[in-house]
């Protein structure tokens, strides 16, 4: 019997009936994780011990899961993807991991940080993937935690044929999660169904005295809100992103992704949803990636100052504290991080802040305002997610807007192009997570891609 390909609710039922045990599930999760590590390099750590767990009424009790290596985990190596933290063992767990532990969910492994060329996509090992997305898609466990800063849950979910959900900013605590871009970092989840994503977010969310960006979501019940009835819902898509006529040099893959998207638009209309085409100033869309670059580099530079090797990480060599820090950072930050820090340092200089950093923040507001205007008339904005098309930059960058605004945003699989997963992203206004997940749940229910496990289509 294979368990890790099942949903959380299916596993809970088996546990309650006594047809399996938390230890049997964990053993399988460990076994699968080691195989997936061997094949796709998705893990930093596969744990080898866990506290004994009892099966309770909580649907997550006894369920194994993974966490991106940005989440501090008590007693378990947490590198944050940095060589500089190669030996860091936290003495506490991140807020979301603590809340999951309270439910009885069991940490089975720490996954590689972000979308990385070092992690192979389980559908096509010649492509890259994010560690948590790869692990869930390949069947290590039913869900995994990750951090979405730009679109780093929602885009890898698309590539791996699974669900990726980023809630409204501040709904889930980031205490103990290694900070990247503080004004855009969101804790979220990869799963193989909207219901599983909702269950996990329900368990993790809530006020946290250790994270002052959290807000009271005690009246939000994501799983309970999933009814799937979206007749009468008003959706829109942005013509400048989704109309093939915007891409005169489109290759066959992009054409197929956009055709797949338009098929879904027809399907939604047939099921009673209103789906309108709307227009947004192209100047806004073309500036999205530049705005992200400036803000993300600036905030990363600030957050990375804490990496100095004195309090944690291997101590650098040198005769003074300054030499030791410099040696530690030179060896411990890789080229991609140093590039960000150089740009960040430049845009944050007193004489440059107004021109670069503040202007990027102004642009961010105008883009968010444009999306909020859409939300005044529509329940959600939809778009194809993760087409991978290099000739459609505005489309590929558009999910960054979900992070700019802190909007709830979810990607679900919606078909295949060239044998690889295609996906649909649904984004709504802040605090409307229940509505957005319910729309996703309804759309997911019309198709056959829920719960799918990756099958290598190119070997």
């Amino acid at each position: 019997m294979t368990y890790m390909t099942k949903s959380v609710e299916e596993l809970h039922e088996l546990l309650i009936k006594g047809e399996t045990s938390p230890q049997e599930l964990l053993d399988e999760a460990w076994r699968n994780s080691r195989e997936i590590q061997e094949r796709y390099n998705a893990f930093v750590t596969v744990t080898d011990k866990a506290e004994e767990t009892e099966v309770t009424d909580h649907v997550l009790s006894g369920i194994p899961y993974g966490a991106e290596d940005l989440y501090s985990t008590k007693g378990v190596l947490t590198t944050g993807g940095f060589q500089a933290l190669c030996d860091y063992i936290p003495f506490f767990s991140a807020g979301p991991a603590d809340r999951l532990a309270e439910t009885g969910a069991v940490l089975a492994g720490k996954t590689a940080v972000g979308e990385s060329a070092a992690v192979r996509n389980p559908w096509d090992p010649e492509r890259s993937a994010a560690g948590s997305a790869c692990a869930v898609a390949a069947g290590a466990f039913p869900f995994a935690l990750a951090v979405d800063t730009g679109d780093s849950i929602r885009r890898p979910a698309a590539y791996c044929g699974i669900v990726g959900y980023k809630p409204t900013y501040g709904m889930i605590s980031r205490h103990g999660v290694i900070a990247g871009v503080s004004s855009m970092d969101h804790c979220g989840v990869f799963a193989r169904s909207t219901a599983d994503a909702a269950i996990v977010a329900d368990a993790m969310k809530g006020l946290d005295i250790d994270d002052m960006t959290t807000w009271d979501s005690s009246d939000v019940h994501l799983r309970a809100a999933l009814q799937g009835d979206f007749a009468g819902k008003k959706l829109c898509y942005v013509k400048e992103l989704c109309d093939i006529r915007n891409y005169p040099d489109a290759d066959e893959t992009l054409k197929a992704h956009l055709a797949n998207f338009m098929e879904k638009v027809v399907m939604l209309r047939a099921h009673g949803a209103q789906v309108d085409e709307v227009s947004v100033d192209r100047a806004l869309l073309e500036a999205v990636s530049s705005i992200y670059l400036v803000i993300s580099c600036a905030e990363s530079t600030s957050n990375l100052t804490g990496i100095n090797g004195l309090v944690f990480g291997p101590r650098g060599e040198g005769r003074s504290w300054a030499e030791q820090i410099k040696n530690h950072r030179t060896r411990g930050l890789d080229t991609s991080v140093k590039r960000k820090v150089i740009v960040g340092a430049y845009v944050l200089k007193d004489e440059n802040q107004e021109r670069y950093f503040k202007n990027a923040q102004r642009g961010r507001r105008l883009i968010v305002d444009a999306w909020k205007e859409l939300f005044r008339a529509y329940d959600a904005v939809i778009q194809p997610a993760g087409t991978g098309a290099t000739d459609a930059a505005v489309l590929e960058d558009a999910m960054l807007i979900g992070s700019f605004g802190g909007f709830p945003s979810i990607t679900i699989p919606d078909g295949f192009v060239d044998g690889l997963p295609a996906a649909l992203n649904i984004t709504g206004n802040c605090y409307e997570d229940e509505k957005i997940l319910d729309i996703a749940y309804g759309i997911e229910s019309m198709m056959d891609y829920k719960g799918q496990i990756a099958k290598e289509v190119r070997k």
Partner: protein
Amino acid sequence: MNKFSTDLVDLFASEQMFDLTEEEKCIALADLEAMEQHMEKIDRIPGIKTAAPMTHCLDDFMLELREDEAVESTPIEDLLANADEVFDREIELPKVVNG
């Protein structure tokens, strides 16, 4: 005249307390040289000059003051557990002032 140079990149790296290889310097220089193109895209957004900078996702976010209550602090031993060089109950650093 180009306002960026590898010397400037070196200066920024030094201020940020790391060294760069020659290859990294060239990459960072290209990144800085591309900044004006990025800013041109941002400048083209209608209304960019008068918009208020956005610093927080949630317009209605209100910080609530906590009760002024003493809470248990983290044991010093825990805080020192990941430091490589510790003396007594403090992080040890090279001497700053001689004599």
